[in-house]
C-alpha cells in the first residue's frame, strides 16, 4: 500500500487511473471494431466483409442516401437557424434572454420524446410519414444545435467591426457578406458538425418518422449487429468512422482558416 500512496503524492500521476480507464473503454473497443472488420465469420483474417459491402448495392446505396439526407437537413437547419441566431445576438432586434433560453431548451429534452412529439404532430395534421416527414422531423430535432453555436460566436463578436465597415461606406449587404459571415464562420462550422454528425449516424429517429419505410445507414448497422452479424456490422461502423474522421479533419482545417481570417480583419 505504501508504494501506492507514494505514486499518488506526485499529482501528475493522478491521471493514471483515467488513462487506464480510457485504454480499456475507449481505445481497446475501437481497436476491436478494426479487428472484427478484418475477420470473416470464423475469426480468420479476411476482406470478405469489405467485398460484401462494396458488392451489395443496397447497403452502399443506403450509405449514400443517408449522406444526402444529412446534407439536406444540415442545409435547412443553417438556412433557418442562421437568421435566428443573428436576430437573437443583435441587441437592437432582440433584448430578451428568455428568447435565447426558449431556443436552446429543446436540447435538454430526450431526443426520442421530441421525435415522438413530431410524429404525433404529423399524425394530427394528417401529413403522411415518409421522406418529407423525415427531413422536417430531423430539422425540428436538430435546429437548436445549429442556432446555439452560431449564437454564441455572434454574441461574442466585436460590433465595432460592423460599424467600421459601415463608416467606410459598405452597404448592408457587403457588411453582411464581408464582415458578419466571416466572423461567425467558427460558429457556422461547429453548428454544421453538431447537426451533420448526429443526422448521419441516427437510426431510431428515421425509423419512427417513416414507419420503417426508409432505411438510413445507422439502421443498417444496428440491424446487422442485432442479427449477430458482428463482423459485417464492424465493417459498416468502420466505414462510418472513417467518413466522420475525414469530416472532422476537414472542418478543423476550415475552422482554423476561419479563425485566422477573423484575426486578420
Amino acid at each position, binding site marked *: 500500500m505504501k508504494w501506492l500512496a507514494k505514486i499518488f*503524492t*506526485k*499529482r*501528475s*500521476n*493522478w*491521471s493514471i*487511473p*483515467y*488513462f487506464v*480507464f*480510457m485504454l480499456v*473503454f475507449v*481505445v481497446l*473497443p*475501437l481497436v*476491436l*471494431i478494426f479487428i472484427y472488420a478484418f475477420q470473416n465469420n470464423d475469426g480468420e483474417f479476411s476482406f470478405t466483409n469489405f467485398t460484401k459491402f462494396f458488392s451489395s448495392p443496397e447497403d452502399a446505396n443506403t450509405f449514400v442516401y443517408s449522406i444526402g439526407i444529412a446534407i439536406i437537413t444540415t442545409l435547412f437547419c443553417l438556412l433557418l437557424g442562421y437568421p*435566428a441566431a443573428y*436576430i*437573437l445576438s*443583435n441587441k*437592437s*432586434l*432582440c433584448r430578451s*434572454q428568455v*428568447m435565447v*433560453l426558449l*431556443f436552446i*431548451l*429543446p436540447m*435538454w*429534452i*430526450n*431526443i*426520442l*420524446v421530441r421525435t*415522438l*412529439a*413530431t410524429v*404525433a*404532430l404529423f*399524425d*394530427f395534421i394528417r401529413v403522411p410519414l415518409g421522406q418529407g416527414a423525415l427531413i422536417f422531423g430531423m430539422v*425540428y430535432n436538430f*435546429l*437548436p444545435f445549429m442556432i446555439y453555436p452560431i449564437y454564441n460566436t455572434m454574441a461574442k463578436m466585436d460590433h465595432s467591426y460592423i460599424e467600421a465597415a459601415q463608416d467606410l461606406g459598405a452597404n448592408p449587404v457587403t457588411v453582411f457578406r464581408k464582415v458578419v459571415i466571416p466572423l461567425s464562420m467558427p460558429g457556422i462550422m461547429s453548428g454544421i458538425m453538431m447537426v451533420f454528425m*448526429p443526422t448521419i*449516424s441516427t*437510426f*431510431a429517429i428515421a*425509423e*419512427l418518422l417513416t414507419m420503417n419505410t426508409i432505411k438510413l445507414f445507422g439502421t443498417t*448497422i*444496428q440491424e446487422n*449487429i442485432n442479427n449477430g452479424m458482428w463482423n459485417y456490422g464492424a465493417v459498416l*461502423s468502420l466505414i*462510418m*468512422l472513417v467518413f*466522420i474522421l475525414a469530416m472532422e479533419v476537414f472542418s478543423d482545417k476550415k475552422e482554423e482558416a476561419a479563425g485566422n481570417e477573423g484575426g486578420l480583419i
Partner: protein
Amino acid sequence: MKMKKFIAQSYLWLLLILLYAPILIIAIFSFTEAKVLGNWTGFSTKLYASLFTSGSHHSLMHAIQNTLVIAIVAAIFSTILGTIAAIGIHNLRGRKKAIMNSLNNIPMLNPDIITGISLFLLFVSLGITQGFTTVILAHITFCTPYVVLCVMPRLLQMNPNIYEAALDLGATPAQAMRKVIFPELKSGMISGFIMAFTLSIDDFAVTLFTKGTEGLETLSTYIYADARKGGLTPELRPLSTIIFVTVLILLIVINVRSERNRKRVEKI
C-alpha cells in the same frame, strides 16, 4: 428600423411556434383519456393519475426508475474519475499532456452509435454478461470527458501556490487536498455532475447496445421498443409533459440565479 424589428421578432416567434408545436400537441392531449393521440374525448386527468399508480404500464415506471438510478450512479463516478483525471492532466507537461487531451476528445467526437457498438464488441469479446453494470460503465465512458472539461478551467484559474502554502503551514497532502483544492474545484465539479447527469438521461444509442438481453429498459429504450410495437403507451403523454415542464422550470431557475450572481459581482 421599427419595421425591421417587427419582421425579426415575427420570424423568431414563427420558428418558436414550429419548434414547440409538437410538444404543445402532446401536452394538450395529455389531458384526455383517448388511447390514440389526436382523439379528444373530453378533459380528464386520468392519464396523470394512472402514471403514478402501478398498472399495465408498470414497466414504464420501472424504466424511469432505471434511467434515474443509472444517471445518478454514472454521474457520481464520472465526477470523481473526471476530477482526479483533471488534476492529473493539469500537472502533466508536454507530450503526455497532449496525449491525455486527445484521448479525452475521442468519446466526445465519436458518434453515439460507434461508441455503443465498440463497447458492445468489448463486452462480448471479454465474455461479460451485459446489463446494469455494463450500461453504467458505458455511461461513465462518455460522460467523464465532459467532467474533465468542466473542472479544467477551475484548475487553470487557481493560484498554484496555495497548495504548497497549505503544505508549508503543516497540512498533510490529504488535508491540503480537502481543505484547499477541493473548495476551489467545487463549482466545476457541480457543473460536470449536472452535465454527466443530463447526458446519461438523454442517451439512447449507447444504452441500446450495452443493455444486454435481460430485459433492462431505460426511458429511451422503452419508448423505442414501444414505438416499434406500433401502439404508444398513452401514459407517455403526461410523462413527456412533466419532463418538459420540469426542464423549463429548472432552466429558468438556473438562469435567474446566474443572472442574480452576475449582478452581485458587478456591484462589488
